[in-house]
């Protein structure tokens, strides 16, 4: 366990060094945040029927999305792992007395958390200074906030487990682009990052609730803005845990299989 923690720590510290990248990221995220908010403002303005989520709640979800982008996006990639797989340096990784799945998991988790830690505060602080209804506000009550933190952490564990599947698929495709693109686009949609899930038609919602993707972002963010009741939130936490276990088992089994048919070319 300790070695995975140390690796986490090392990647984490390294991630914190990229301050300029983080600053650039913050500016980009603001741009995207505003763009999404303006699109949905136009949507709300053109519709007279009441929506299942208020505009201000939606705005807050958008800011959370942008602030925690590094935690939730499936396309967020670790090019070193991709290189290891495609160029064969994975040979070296296998020479270490570690479990590769856990080792990579720790690494990906560290990369995401360090990257998010540098970005989320400036975005949320500046967004909270904006005028109503564009401003970011605190959650309705303290319990919502606690539930938000728990579901966000569990959500990240799901995201990393999902992205592990992307990396394992590269053992077969030997290319980073395809897997990440397909997974990224589909996953983003199913997670409600393109159209917020409350605004989706019922039939689609039913499918989406059955898949793991919404438990990564939609769930914690809607808990934060108060769009999901506490009871539903607590049940969802259990579902999150089940998904983490399922995805972990799938990933482990698939990776073992992939490693058995591994071919390392050259050198």
């Amino acid at each position, binding site marked *: 366990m300790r070695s995975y923690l*140390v*690796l986490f720590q090392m990647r984490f510290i390294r991630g914190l060094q990229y301050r300029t990248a983080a600053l650039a990221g913050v500016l980009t995220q603001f741009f995207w945040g505003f763009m999404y908010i303006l699109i949905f403002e136009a949507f709300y303005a053109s519709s007279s029927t009441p929506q299942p989520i208020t505009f201000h709640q939606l705005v807050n979800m958008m800011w959370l999305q942008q602030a925690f982008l590094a935690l939730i996006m499936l396309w967020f990639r670790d090019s070193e792992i991709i290189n290891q797989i495609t160029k064969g340096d994975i*040979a*070296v990784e296998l*020479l*270490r007395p570690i479990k590769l799945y856990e080792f990579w998991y720790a690494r990906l988790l560290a990369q995401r958390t360090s990257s998010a830690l540098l970005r989320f505060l400036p975005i949320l602080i500046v967004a909270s200074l904006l005028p109503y209804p564009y401003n970011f506000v605190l959650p309705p009550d303290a319990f919502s906030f606690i539930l938000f933190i728990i579901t966000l952490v569990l959500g990240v564990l799901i995201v990393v487990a999902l992205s592990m599947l992307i990396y394992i698929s590269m053992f077969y495709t030997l290319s980073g682009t395809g897997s990440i693109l397909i997974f990224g686009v589909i996953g983003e949609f199913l997670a409600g990052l393109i159209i917020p899930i409350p605004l989706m038609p019922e039939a689609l919602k039913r499918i989406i609730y059955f898949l793991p993707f919404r438990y990564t972002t939609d769930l914690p963010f809607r808990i934060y803005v108060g769009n999901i009741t506490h009871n539903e939130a607590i049940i969802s936490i259990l579902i999150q845990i089940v998904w983490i276990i399922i995805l972990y088992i799938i990933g482990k089994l698939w990776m073992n299989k992939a490693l*058995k*048919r*591994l071919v390392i070319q050259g*050198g």
Partner: protein
Amino acid sequence: MIQVEGITKTFQVAKRNKGVIEALKHLVRREYTIVKALDNVSFNIKQGEIVGYIGPNGAGKSTTIKVISGILVPDNGTCNIIGYTPWKDRKEYVKHIGVVFGQRTQLWWDVPVIDSYQLLKDIYKIPTNVYQNNLELLTETLELKELLNTPVRQLSLGQRMRCEMGAALLHDPKILFLDEPTIGLDAVSKKAVRNFIKTINQEKQVTVILTTHDMRDIEELVNRIILIGKGKILLDGTLDEVKLKFGSEKTMVITYSTQFKPFDFPIENINGNQLRFMINTNKQSLPQIIDKVSEYVQIEDIDINHLPIEDIIVKLYKEYQL
């Protein structure tokens, strides 16, 4: 210590002829050729040996190293190395071995070397006192002192290789696999690497298996050669045996003062008053040759050289049609 028995490993290689039409066909249906990278490979290695694993490019050297270090799973065969089957007990097994791939790095690219070492200490769970001792020893013998605080990406190849060696030995491995450790190094670095291998072999009784194309490596380090070609083991013996078998040809250089009659036997080279030609002591004894030559010239000086090991290896490869 190392027992390898009947290891076979095949790879599927997609075959494609040239041309657009062939490329399109390839999209629909692929033809594969099966390449036997290893074909019934067996050998035994005792503790403390330094074994040179040689063969031309593509012979299966690296594949063997990858199989016996637990990275690749062979199709067939058994392997018992210090009580483990490498590909089955990988995680436990690799604690006892050190591997250096000349063409790959196991250090973390953008952190100082010492940070990588620290991480390895945690990964291998090396006790602090063992780690300290080894680090001290390695720093001294590999002259790492100035390198330890430099990020790996800023090191030269020779410096990096020394650090790689250090990284592979921090956890006191019993066996060291070196896959072309001197590739691309300059003469000084090569020498340093060789000296180091010798030292740890003698002092710590580490068993070393190295693949190389550099015959100086073989000459200076190795007491036993395993020759592999097209996936098969062709020869397994000591360097002296190989020399005896394939090095019976020697070059003879004769310096003469006067010539009695024109030469009517094949001479490779005449340089002023020097003759140079190949002799085979298995076919003709030296006195016979000298007797014969002295019919032609007045001999002043004789110089006999063994075939350089490079040439012996070339002959070996030729002999086995590699």
